[in-house]
């Protein structure tokens, strides 16, 4: 007789399942746009109509027209051609700088995590002091040491000054797994630092730094353009998205909006695409339903 009660409990309608995780949009548009910009910059020699460095002094500051698609700058260079070939330089610098800073961060962070406590504390204090030295000072000094700026030295300068935040994340992640059995086993079998780093540690912390690395790419592009704009990056003769904009003081006087707006919009679209793609790599922890 008590059975029926149990069955009644049993047939109670199930609670509705947790709200389905919102479908994540695939960043098709930004992948396509970024691909187009990358490809266009790589293959720019095939289609740009004019030599980007050629100064056509008869046609200074011309607004966009059929002859000059995006107009010309105050030195008579064709902006359409400059954007594509300048993008090649800017993107090269960004990728190289990101690679450098990621490499330093991974090695420094895991070294610090695996080191004995006193060395770990020392290394972390070092990064804190490095953080409190004004980065502008470091950049100017590094530039002075490396000599005449070119694309590679700018990339080194940006890479060397932007690794601390990733290093901190790597350190935290490695500290959590450093005493796992697989790391100890590898150590017992005589695995060296780089072997352990590459085979055992990296696969574990890569997902958590991937987003930061992509964001680093973004800030490297911004850093290059800002440095070149301020006159401490690439010289005016090497065309990049930053050095194109360094003439804009004159453009302001001439009210030549296209010299400022068009390269800037290119820059921002690239940055937006990278951000959108980078968000795919972000760990989405809170798929739980809100309690509020």
């Amino acid at each position: 007789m008590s059975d029926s009660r149990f069955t009644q409990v049993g047939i109670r309608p199930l609670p509705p399942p947790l709200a389905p995780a919102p479908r994540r949009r695939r960043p098709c548009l930004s992948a396509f746009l970024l691909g187009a910009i990358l490809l266009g910059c790589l293959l720019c020699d095939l289609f740009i109509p004019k030599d980007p460095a050629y100064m056509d002094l008869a046609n200074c500051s011309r607004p966009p027209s059929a002859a000059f698609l995006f107009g010309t700058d105050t030195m008579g260079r064709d902006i359409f051609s400059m954007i594509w070939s300048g993008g090649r330089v800017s993107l090269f610098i960004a990728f190289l700088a990101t690679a450098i800073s990621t490499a330093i961060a991974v090695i420094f962070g895991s070294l610090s995590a695996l080191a004995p406590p006193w060395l770990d504390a020392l290394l972390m204090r070092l990064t804190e002091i490095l953080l409190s030295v004004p980065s502008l000072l470091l950049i100017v000094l590094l530039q002075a040491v490396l000599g005449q700026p070119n694309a590679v030295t700018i990339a080194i300068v940006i890479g060397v000054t932007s690794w601390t935040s990733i290093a901190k994340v790597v350190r935290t992640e490695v500290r959590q797994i450093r005493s796992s059995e697989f790391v100890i086993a590898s150590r017992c079998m005589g695995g060296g630092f780089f072997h352990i780093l590459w085979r055992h540690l990296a696969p574990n912390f890569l997902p958590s730094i991937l987003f930061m690395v992509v964001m680093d790419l973004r800030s490297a592009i911004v850093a290059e353009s800002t440095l070149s704009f301020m006159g401490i990056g690439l010289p005016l003769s090497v065309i990049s998205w930053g050095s194109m904009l360094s003439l804009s003081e004159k453009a302001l006087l001439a009210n030549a909006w296209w010299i400022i707006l068009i390269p800037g919009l290119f820059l921002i679209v690239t940055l937006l695409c990278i951000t959108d793609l980078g968000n795919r790599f972000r760990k989405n922890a809170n798929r739980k339903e809100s309690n509020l």
Partner: protein
Amino acid sequence: MSTVLYCLKKLAAFAVSLLVLSVVVFSIARLAPGDPLVSYYGDRAEKMSPAERAWAEERLGLHDPLPVQYARWLSNALRGDLGISYKYKTDVLEVIQGRLGNTLLLGGLGFLLIFGLSLLLGVLCAWFEDRLLDRWICRIGTVSSCVPEFWLSLVLILLFSVTLRLLPSSGAYTIGHAGDPADRLRHLVLPLTVIVLGHLWYYAYMVRNKLLEEVRADYVLLAKAKGLGKGAILFRHCLRGILPSYFSIIAISVPHILGGTYIVETVFSYPGLGALAYESARYQDYDLLMVLSILSGGAVILCSLIAQAVNERIDPRIRAGEVGPLV
């Protein structure tokens, strides 16, 4: 007693960090190639004979070995003599004094706006999570975080100064109107907008994400069961829960916002410390550079100490000594 000891400990940590910072800045500044005589004598430095150069270096105390130079700088600094600026040829403090107010006004206002608005936006987003308002704020915020500061400054100048002729494009005040607050405010609008827009989304997004995590904690369910309203839970409990980590991050960013204004100051020709630091690093103006670096570095260290102290007030769990190492 223990409070005194605590304060002394913090003070000692502060002093040691400052000392290390000064050694680091001193050595990288002097080891970098470059001719400080150029910043003192201008173009004349290049035409000097070797004897004249030696005399000039002797006079500025530049040819002693580095440790001796550092010791001299330190003993002078402790007696309150921070040296002279090679470029302006007056006392360093005088050079800084004229500009400190400008930067503090710009950076301080910017910081307050960023602090307040980021909390407001973050709470708004968390309140309307995944609804229309939240999504649009996120979209606009992402775009705003992608715009480089220098480009935004240019576009604002182009729009408001060149085309509409509404706002001045450079300087801190119109000449002759230094004491007029309205005039100062008009000069502040554009630089302030750039600073706030450049940083705002980074902090607002952080507040939003931290709040969204906090809202999923179990105590929220309890508070709700107790009958608390949404606003009360969000403001009185969740916001309080995230404030410690938010404070420590924004405290570290105080000097970043205050001193990182150099791009804005340069584009808007705003006479502030950022532009001065940029100049002194570029032209080997050693004494000025030292004071500015220590000022900004000291601000970083001081702010993180203050953040620690404030956090311990808000969140008793962090109080020193109560939590042992977890590993």
